[in-house]
């Protein structure tokens, strides 16, 4: 059969070369340089919300997480920053994700954060594809894999907002730095991973590189050059029947430049420079009842230890500052339980507590409130895996108004209805 066809082919070829037959197109035209098939995976996620709160927006902007955040208007991020900031309707973000295999050696990911009037590169990084021995290199700007929650995007979170201790130590956008990361997965039956990151350390809540100058040069701190931050972690996981456990230990260490309104000389403003070390331990348990129903428990404890030289504006005397060494010892945890009841419904609760909040300077005991607590409950309805409606109620006892005599607690009650939609080629999520 094949030889017969071949004979026919050579015959027609002979006829062609002899000029007896015109050449026939086997495929119709089109652009010979078309590259449409090389289009990378593109997806867009939209997040919007409607909020009811017992404090007015203005009052809310004045509230702080004592020892962690400064009132809005200062450059430091705030627990209720750009997302879900206002009572009523909020357009929180559009997240544009573009990713593809570059070549046999690299993958590329780009995550853009689209605001109403802003465009920001949230993440832009490569990962290697061909390094053997279980090693992988990642480079660019990316969410640190510190702890359990930090590497997850906002739309992967089980609650609308970040846990209190994360928001307090890193801000709502978490630890997101320019740098490199090397991970190693051990060649064992059990999952064991070691990772290290080396990055600029620009996070203004705990690290920061920008210098500052105030009071006509009486306070003058030079910026620090990067790379400024080292992060390391170990993670391991075991399966026991239908139960999966994942645990991790993490550490972040770097120089800091803290500046909470020192230029303006406001009451309670402070600034300093020194070093910060943050350690964390995390544990996640997921139990599968069947293919659809599952229960997960997740808890993390984070601790910050910072020390250096600082300046403090006296509470009752604006524009008068003292210079003294400072120390920060702050720690807190969150514990959350989320259950998936059926294909569409998930429910969960979270308990946040910061139980250590000590800042000190010589000759004075810290007066910052301890026991900052928040309770959160949520219920989700997911018509499909691409759309989600979430109702969240928060009773927040962690917010205070910073006044000249000291901190005054302002408990907040908040109800959020959130919608999150994803279109396009959006990649699957990790565990």
């Amino acid at each position: 059969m094949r030889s017969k066809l071949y004979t026919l082919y050579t015959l027609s070829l002979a006829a062609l070369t002899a000029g007896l037959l015109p050449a026939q197109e086997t495929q119709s035209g089109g652009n010979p340089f078309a590259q449409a098939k090389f289009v990378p995976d593109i997806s867009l996620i939209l997040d919007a919300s409607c909020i009811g709160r017992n404090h007015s927006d203005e009052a809310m902007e004045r509230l702080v997480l004592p020892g962690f955040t400064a009132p809005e208007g200062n450059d430091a991020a705030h627990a209720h920053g750009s997302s879900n900031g206002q009572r009523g309707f909020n357009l929180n973000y559009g997240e544009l994700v573009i990713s593809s295999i570059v070549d046999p050696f690299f993958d590329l990911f780009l995550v853009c954060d689209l605001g109403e009037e802003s465009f920001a590169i949230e993440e832009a990084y490569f990962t290697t594809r061909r390094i053997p021995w279980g090693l992988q290199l990642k480079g660019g700007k990316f969410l640190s894999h510190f702890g359990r929650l930090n590497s997850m995007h906002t739309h992967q979170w089980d609650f609308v907002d970040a846990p209190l201790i994360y928001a307090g130590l890193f801000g709502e956008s978490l630890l997101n730095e320019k740098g490199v990361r090397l991970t190693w997965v051990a060649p064992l039956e059990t999952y064991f991973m070691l990772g290290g990151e080396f990055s600029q350390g620009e996070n203004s809540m705990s690290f920061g590189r920008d210098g500052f100058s105030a009071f006509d040069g009486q306070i003058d701190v030079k910026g620090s050059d990067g790379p400024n931050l080292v992060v390391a972690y170990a993670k391991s996981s075991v399966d026991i029947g239908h139960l999966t456990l994942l645990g991790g230990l993490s550490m972040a260490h770097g120089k800091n430049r803290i500046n909470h309104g020192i230029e303006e000389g406001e009451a309670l403003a402070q600034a300093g420079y020194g070093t910060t070390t943050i350690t964390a331990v995390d544990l996640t348990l997921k139990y599968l009842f069947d293919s659809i129903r599952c229960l997960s428990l997740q808890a993390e404890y984070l601790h910050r230890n910072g020390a250096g030289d600082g300046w403090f504006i006296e509470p009752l005397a604006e524009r008068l500052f003292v210079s003294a060494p400072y120390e920060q010892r702050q720690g807190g945890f969150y514990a959350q339980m989320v259950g998936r009841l059926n294909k569409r419904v998930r429910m969960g609760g979270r308990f946040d507590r910061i139980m250590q909040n000590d800042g000190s300077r010589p000759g004075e005991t810290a007066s910052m409130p301890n026991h900052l607590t928040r309770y959160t409950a949520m219920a989700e309805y997911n018509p499909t895996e691409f759309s989600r409606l979430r109702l969240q109620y928060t009773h927040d006892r962690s917010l205070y108004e910073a006044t000249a005599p000291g901190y005054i607690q302002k408990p907040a009650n908040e109800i959020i209805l959130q919608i999150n939609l994803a279109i396009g080629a959006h990649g699957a999520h990790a565990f």
Partner: protein
Amino acid sequence: MKKFLILIFLAAALSAQAERVQIVTTYPYIASIAEQIGQERVRVHALAGGQWDPHTILPKPSFIARLRRADLLIINGAQLEIGWLPPLMNQANNPKIAVGSKGLLDLSRFVQLMDVPASVSRAHGDIHPDGNPHYYLDPANIPILAQAITAKLIEMDASGTTLYRKNLAAFLQAWNEHLAIWDSKMEKLRGVTVIEYHKNLDYFLSRYEIKIMATVELLPGIPPTSKHIQELEEKIAGCKVCYILQDIYNPDDASRHLAAKFNIPMVKMPHDVGSVPGAEGIFALFEEIVRRLTHD
């Protein structure tokens, strides 16, 4: 001396163990075929359990450890694993099984897929743009998959060629014998009409010319609404439906309701090796599917 010999024997046994081709498969049915072809030259591990919904496997970190040490990863393909496997492969970062390397075998490349959608939109539910991915439930496709796995094993471990060929021949012979029996048993169901929960068994049913009137779920991956159930009831009323076929992982309340209302037997159908007791291997899986439909 005796102890020394035992030590040597142990060392040899251990090194033989180490030289085995480490195969990871996404689903247990692939593992069952690969074990029968590779036998003592391979070590096979399936990531997903047969009792889980194959579309939404929980991507456990322990899978990363498995993928990290694999020489060969065999997947179902046709995007059945799209919701759980890619991040695991990225985290395991094993160049041997990366996309484009010879240690990744996509079985869907060897078969003709049904229901390839002409246009793709999520308005139609969780559709698979490459076609229906449950092709392995056509018993005539299994020999093709066995051949593809054999060819891959020979490519990766040439010194086992004779053994792999021998095992394949034995597998194919046994399969054809079983297939003849299954075909004759299924003959009596030729032409009947059924309802499926999800489009799981289309390949199996079309082989025996069994008509699928509708699916219980509204659209692929989207649970039924009460309006959809009402429409189904109207359809069933004017038609003779032989079975309602329900998979083992989706809620069966809607199927149960329809079955009770119209007095149609609801049959729980296994979809993979290990999904139900009695479906412990690739032969037993089809044995069980045929048994549940024909009762013999």
